[in-house]
């Protein structure tokens, strides 16, 4: 009886707390939705994304154009359905006019589709990096200041072929749009340089047992290209190493990210020397990067060096705040002014200049890296080369690039 009353009270209190939150939002605060994965296999990645976003907010002292920034968080589990549900809650219940997120590839495509139904809300990507989010059938109000997964691979295919001397490479990647994009970006260069990819393995997100995948990798390959994230990467690499696999690795951007490099165990020996490419490099000695790392480390639970999720969410949140600053925090016109400002926005990030193309996708510097052990024993990505200002078509003229077709499991192919 007592418990029943208390339950009712609790229900009443929290519906009461949340329902009128729209009305309570005073004029001197700006609400920004933050959508990341706080559940499922990518939880660690989502939490680091949040740290990145909060670094950007802290950098502006939590205010923009004299108004206080209020961050409202939403959680997904990396499935497109949950991302849309969380986005709906933030937009339709919490009443945010600006939303930063989501984290993962298919989520991004789903949120872009949702964005089309909410023309008065401005969506800024988190780290979702599928090519088709912006390249094909883009939404007018969806912006991506972090680059896409194919851009992140700039320089890696050529480097693997010319400098490392790998002629035949097998790929192992997760089975959804972001890894397709990464494999596309790697193979675009690798195949052009003359390399061959005899086998491609696609594994579901959250896979635990990789023995059949490992068994299916051809014996005679020079290296294995791995594009797996979070727990999947750790599981695969551990099992591959325990199974006696010895082929050198080439890493997808999130495979050799801090979210994986900080894991314990023998994995460290396997990962050392792995070439990769992505939007960040840990040993980047540019002053702007070092300042960013220091600011990032103030966030609770931070990694020794920010992961690319922290970086991506930072860049997108920073762009959001800069855009809001330019319009004086005014989104009362359905965000039209804000979107104009964002389209023209060009600014210096810790990793170089970022600007947008006509599809509202970023053009930015990409870093070619190799995993190395730092002075303090932490694994980090050593900067090998910077590929300046990579655009979404990887420097190929747009009509020629579009002829390569949409990324999927079978495209591209060079067996």
């Amino acid at each position, binding site marked *: *009886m007592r418990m029943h009353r208390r339950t009712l009270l609790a229900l009443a209190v929290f519906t009461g707390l949340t*329902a009128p939150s729209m009305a309570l939002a005073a004029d001197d605060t700006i609400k920004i939705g933050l959508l990341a994965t*706080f559940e499922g296999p990518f939880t660690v990645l989502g*939490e680091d994304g949040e740290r990145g976003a909060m670094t950007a907010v802290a950098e502006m002292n939590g205010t923009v154009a004299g108004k206080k920034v209020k961050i409202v968080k939403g959680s997904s589990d990396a*499935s497109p359905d*949950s991302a*849309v549900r969380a986005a709906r809650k933030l937009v*339709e219940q919490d009443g945010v006019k600006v939303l930063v997120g989501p984290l993962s590839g298919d989520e991004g495509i789903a949120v872009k589709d949702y964005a089309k139904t909410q023309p008065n809300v401005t969506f800024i990507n988190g780290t979702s990096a599928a090519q088709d989010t912006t390249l094909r059938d883009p939404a007018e109000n969806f912006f991506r200041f972090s680059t896409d997964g194919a851009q992140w691979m700039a320089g890696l295919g050529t480097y693997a072929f010319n400098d490392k001397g790998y002629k035949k490479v097998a790929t192992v990647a997760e089975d959804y*749009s972001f890894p397709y994009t990464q494999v596309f970006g790697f193979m675009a260069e690798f195949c052009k340089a003359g390399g061959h990819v005899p086998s491609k393995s696609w594994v579901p997100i959250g896979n635990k047992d990789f023995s059949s995948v490992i068994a299916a990798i051809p014996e005679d390959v020079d290296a294995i290209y791995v594009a797996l994230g979070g727990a999947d990467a750790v599981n695969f690499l551990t099992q591959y190493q325990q199974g006696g696999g010895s082929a050198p690795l080439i890493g997808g951007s999130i495979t050799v990210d801090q979210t994986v490099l900080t894991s314990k165990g023998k994995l460290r020996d396997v990962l050392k020397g792995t070439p990769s490419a992505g939007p960040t490099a840990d040993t980047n000695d540019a002053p702007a990067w070092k300042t960013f790392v220091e600011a990032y480390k103030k966030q609770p639970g931070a990694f020794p060096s920010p992961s690319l999720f922290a970086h991506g969410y930072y860049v997108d949140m920073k762009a959001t705040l800069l855009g809001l600053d330019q319009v004086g925090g005014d989104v009362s016109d359905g965000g039209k002014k804000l979107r104009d400002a964002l389209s023209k926005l060009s600014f210096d990030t810790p990793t170089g200049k970022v600007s947008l193309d006509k599809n509202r996708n970023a053009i930015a510097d990409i870093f070619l890296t190799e995993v190395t052990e730092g002075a303090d024993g932490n694994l980090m990505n050593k900067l090998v080369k910077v590929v300046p200002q990579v655009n979404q078509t990887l420097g190929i003229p747009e009509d020629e690039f579009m002829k390569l077709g949409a990324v999927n499991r079978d495209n591209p192919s060079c067996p």
Partner: protein
Amino acid sequence: MSLAITTNLTPQQNWLERLGAGHIILAVALVLYPLVASDFFLTQIGGYSLIFGMLGLSLMLLAGYGGMVSLAQITVAGISAYAIAILGNNNSNILGFGWPWWLAVPFAVLAAALASALIGWISVRTEGIYTIMITLAIATATYYFAQQNYAIFNGHSGYAGIRAPAFWGIGWRDARPFYYLCLGLAVLSYAAVLYGSRSTFGMTLQAIRDNPRRMRALGYHVTAHKVFAWLLAGVIAGLAGVLLVWFNGRVSPGTIGVDAAIDVLIIAVIGGLRHPIGPFLGAVVVVLMQTFAIDIVGAERFNTLIGMVFLVIVFVSPDGILGLWGRIKPHLAQESLRPGQ
């Protein structure tokens, strides 16, 4: 013979009395709910709870009357959701036969019901925990099949751009029409289960639940009755699947994953399995918790809070919210007698 006489002797109730005061109050409240609720509370809380309530109801029908606990109800709903995506229109450039809704919906529900009967047929020879395991295996297998099959299910991305139909000048995915659509179908399913439970078939099913050997000895075809119950549960889950795909506008393996399957079980357990209203109560609690827990305790710990609330409910009342009510009711009755004395 004597039974027939007693029925004749009972005073004729009019339909209002037979409906009961509780039902009438609830119906009025649900019909008037759109007057006070925002669009978000109409669809994301109201509609979504009704959809998951229907899924819980289909489980309640199997578990409560048939003694068969199934974890595959979301799979059945997923089959009709995928059927709508494949037979109707989608924007994923795969399949999409463009059938009108009035053709696609019956087919989807039929497919779901047949799939449900098939799952029932496979699992009906097992009992108790083995039924749970076999249906969990089917749910997991279907999830991975959808995840890795590109020709039919379009893999991890699934289908997007599915629109609810518009007819009679109403767009059925707009907040109010969609809420009433969910409400209508939920009430229909609820009434059907309530009526069915008192029918000859319902009584037989409950008798089979209590003592299958005796029923077999009496000459009843136990397997046929159980499989038919699965078929009926499949119709309800199939309808819920149609609403679910219209609600989300998309369907992907994430919709029918093991998490979702367990959500349905939690909803049924929290609500209570003794009466068809239980799953709907459970669905409201679960949907509210999943939506708002993150606002109460922040992004890092909200799943812990959800888990703890569920634990508390099951701890206080092993037979769910309905059981709580059953315990409170006598107290209320006592109190209400006092002023009259």
